Structure formats: C-alpha cells, structure tokens
C-alpha cells in the first residue's frame, strides 16, 4: 500500500513550512504514523523519496525518537509513565494491573491487536499521577487507580 495522496501532499507542505526537506523529516514521519499507525520500511522509503532525502537519513531520526514506531502497534497505544512522581503515587500497582489484564509486558501488543503498552518517562502529568497517555491524540489520563485503567481498557475488550 502506498501513502495516500493526502499524506503525500502533507509531506510536501511540511518541507515548505519547515525550511526544507531535511528539516521536515520528523514531521513526515509523524504524518506517516498518523495515517498508517506506524512507519513501515516501505512507507519510510516512500516518505524519503517524496522529500528527496536518503532512507538512511530519515531512518536515523525514526530510530532516535521514542514516539516514532518502526514496527506495528495496536489500535490503542497506552504510554504509561514510569517516572518518579507516578511511582511515588502508586504507579507500579497500576502497571501490574494493566499488564495482568492485557496479558502483555512493556513494548508488547495484545494478540488481538487492540492494545500496545509502552513505558515512558515523565509526561508532565505529575499533578494527576499516576498518569498515562492514551490513543493517537496522546490524551492525558490520571490519577489512575488499578481499577480505572482496567476499566478504560475494558471498554475495548
């Protein structure tokens, strides 16, 4: 599957607004991911070609940034904070509950492809700790109890 005309156009626009093809590489990766869920080898190459940069160059960014996914992820990505303030507010119990409920560990996707669970650093939600970012819009949720998060994912189960 090639990238949609909309995504392709958006990548071209990014090069204009970001001061050149190179400076737009990360934005291109984000556009691809927003449309496709993750950045496959084929789409990486296609985005590079649209920008006129090398695949290696754009991959050097894709592999550097934690929120660019180079392999498939579930429909809903849960980024669970493992920072200190969340830990102090009971984050580990939430982590254990969600892992048990989904039957997966960090960096894994449920067999039905519904959820991916990833641990991330402080997400600036220490006032609502323990906190997580859920879904493509990175919606901040918290303070989470073990029950809350299992309820949250329960809806999609």
């Amino acid at each position, binding site marked *: 599957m090639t990238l949609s005309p909309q995504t392709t156009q958006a990548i071209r626009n990014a090069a204009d607004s*970001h001061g050149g093809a190179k400076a737009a590489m990360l934005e291109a*990766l984000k556009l691809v991911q927003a449309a496709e869920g993750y950045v496959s080898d084929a789409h990486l190459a296609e985005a590079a070609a649209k920008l006129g940069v090398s695949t290696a160059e754009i991959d050097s960014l894709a592999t550097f940034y934690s*929120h660019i996914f180079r392999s498939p992820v579930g429909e809903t990505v849960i980024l669970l904070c493992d920072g200190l*303030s969340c830990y*102090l507010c009971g984050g580990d119990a939430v982590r254990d509950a969600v892992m048990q409920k989904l039957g997966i560990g960090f960096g894994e996707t449920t067999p039905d492809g519904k959820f991916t669970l990833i641990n991330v650093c402080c*997400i600036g939600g220490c006032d609502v700790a323990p906190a997580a*970012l859920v879904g493509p819009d990175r*919606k901040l949720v918290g303070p989470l109890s073990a029950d809350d998060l299992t309820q949250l994912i329960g809806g999609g189960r």
Partner: protein
Amino acid sequence: MSETPLTGRAQPDREPHRFAEWQRLGGYDALRGALKRHSPEALVAIVEASGLRGRGGAGFLTGTKWRLMRKAAEAAGEGPRYLCVNGDEMEPGSFKDRLLMEALPHQLIEGAMLAAYAVGATEVIILVRDAYRAAAVALTRAITEAESAGLLGRNILGSGFGLKMRLHASAGRYIVGEETALIAAIEGERPVPRHRPPYPAQSGLWGRPTTVNNVETLSAVPHIVQNGAEWFQKLSRTEEGGTKLYGISGRVNRPQLIEAPMGTPAGELIEMAGGIRDGRKLLAFQPGGGATAFLQEADLDVPMDFAHVKKAGSSLGTGAVIVLDDQSCPVAAIGRHARFYARESCGLCTPCRDGLPWVAKLLDALEAGHGTQQDIDLLHMHVELAGPSGRSFCDLMAGAMTPVKSGLERFGDIFAAHLKGHCPVGRS
C-alpha cells in the same frame, strides 16, 4: 492572595482563549505599546532591570542573554536570526510549561514576539514535546489568529518590524531540551548536543544567531514590559524578580502547580499542596526536578530562588518539587531517575552512554537487596567521573548523577541497610 500574572487568566478547564477574548483581557497591549514606544535596545534594558532569570533550569539572566545575542547578530551581519522557544519540558517532575502552552498560548506568543523584537529575530520556532498534543493544537490556532490580526508577518502594525512564527513538533526524546540539541532537532539532524562555543547567539540554527528561551521565561515578558521592571521585582520575596511556577508532586495530599512569589519556601509550597500525604513525615525533596540534589527538613524554609537553593546545596532547576515521605525508599527513587537518564542518553559520548546504564544496574541491585559494597564504590566512581570537572559532552550526565551523589551523601545509612537485604523505610 498574592498576584498570579502568569496563570491568573487560565480557565479552569484549560480551554485556551480565542483571540478577541484574549485582547479584551489585555492581551497584546504590551506588544502594541512596545512597538510604538520602545526601541529593541530599550526593551532589553527593561528585561535586564527586571532581573528575570531563565526558567529552563539554569537561571541565566535573560536580559544578559538577549544583549549577547544583539552583539553577536551585529557581528554576523545581514540574514535570518532566530528565537527558539523551548517547550520540550521533559525533566522529571516538571509540568509548568504544559499549562502555559495549553491554556495560555497567546501569552507565550506575545512574549516570544517581544523577545524577537528585542533581539532582532526574524523567525520564532516553538518546539513542543510530543506528549503535549493539546498544547500544539492551542499554539497552532493561536498563531493563526495572531497572523489574521496582523500581529505576525511583514511590517507589524506599521512598525517596520516583521516576524514569522511556527511550531516544531518533537517526538519524545529528553535530550531535545538541551539547547544545542534542540537546534539540531529543528534542522532535522539527529538531535545530539553540539559543542559550545560557539554559543547559539554566535552560531545557532542553520549557523545563524539564535536565542533559546524557555516557555515560562517568555510568558513573563509581556507582564514585565507592561508593568515595568520595578513591579516585577516587587512580586518576588527575594532579590530575584517575579513569580515562579512551582510544581509540587510525589507524596503530598494534593499534587499541583502553584504560581507563587519567587523565593517562596518549599515548606509553604508543600503546605499549599495539602501537606505530606496521610499525615506522614517528610524524608526529603528535590527542589527542581530529577537532576537536582535532595534537600531535607532543615531546608524547608530556604527561599526557593536560584541563589538561595544553590547556597543550600541544590538548585532551583525547573521548580519541580518532588516530595519523598518517610516511607519512600530513596534508593528506589534514585534508581527510577537513573533508569530514565540511562534510557534518554543520546549515545553521543561514552561516559554517559555506557556509564548511566551501569549506574542504573547498580542501583537496581541495591534496591532489590542483593547489592554489594563494591556496587556502592562503583557509584562513587561514577559520581566522580561526572563531577564538576566532568568528562561527558553535555550536562545530561552531570544532572543524572546529581541525585545519586546527594543520595549517597544523605542516605548512606539507608544504602548500608540495603546491603543487608532490607529497606528500613520502603513501603513494600
């Protein structure tokens, strides 16, 4: 109630104001006034007189930074000049810039415009971390609104001053907040730090004169310009001007963001956050995020400004106060941070890339109760390696080792107890 110029106008649901509404609240008055009445030089002088210190962590005097930029820009001659707004905010415990960007985007934009006018920048680029999607949406809309109102673009309000502004959305890497890495990130390079000197003012974005300022720093600027340096000075309880956004989190009853006079002691802030959770006692607190040294009971009345916290042996950092109570294991807390910094090392230099995972592993072993005295000795070795005469390329490693160093100093007995396989304070 003390004055809260930075956050007072935020709506409870954090919904950002539309342009017209913001103008009714006095938005862009400072900009309109400044373009009419002040030369760029005069604006620098006002900010210099206000004593504003950078809120990104280091506390560098903003007026001084701007003056250096003007000098360097003169030497660099014709061409573009940049102001980069640092909205990366990934220091553990910090959540102040999130509110300023999400709920008060026009305030930041006006501050950035004033700064750009003062330093002679031709373009402003606001870098926002990926976790702050609501902030990116709010800022994008606000920039469009300001453009439509003729406050961005060519010849703004007939002043002859022109300015472009845009967003750069990041994708989740802590090192991007370091100013030279931030510049590399905007250029589309793999964002690893660059050598200083040359400083960004001399050779920054695309080799051109560049100023990097934090979101909170710039959000204070419209108020300083509108109300004067003296007013700003008087907001503070100490020599350092202004209010400060303090984030209180961890073992308190009501974790929250508090805008208070600069120099408000941590004890008062913790009380405002409902006190230590469940009536427990304080063990220690970090005054300014993950990379700051622990302080304790005796330091609760230290005025929380850059100079006083430094004198107490730590640093104000981002003003993110992380509270440990007497049931929080400091070995575990330090380990959390260590794992974070190890993961976020950009990999450029060996001491940081290889040293921090080692440190994290040592702390893991100690936390789990099967560490040895040799592990503690190795931690001391890393502290020395990263120390003031540090051997790492940028400040990430020094910052990462700061809580380790201060933890070893303050909690030697707790570390020793862990050697015997038990934690004297931990909850579990």
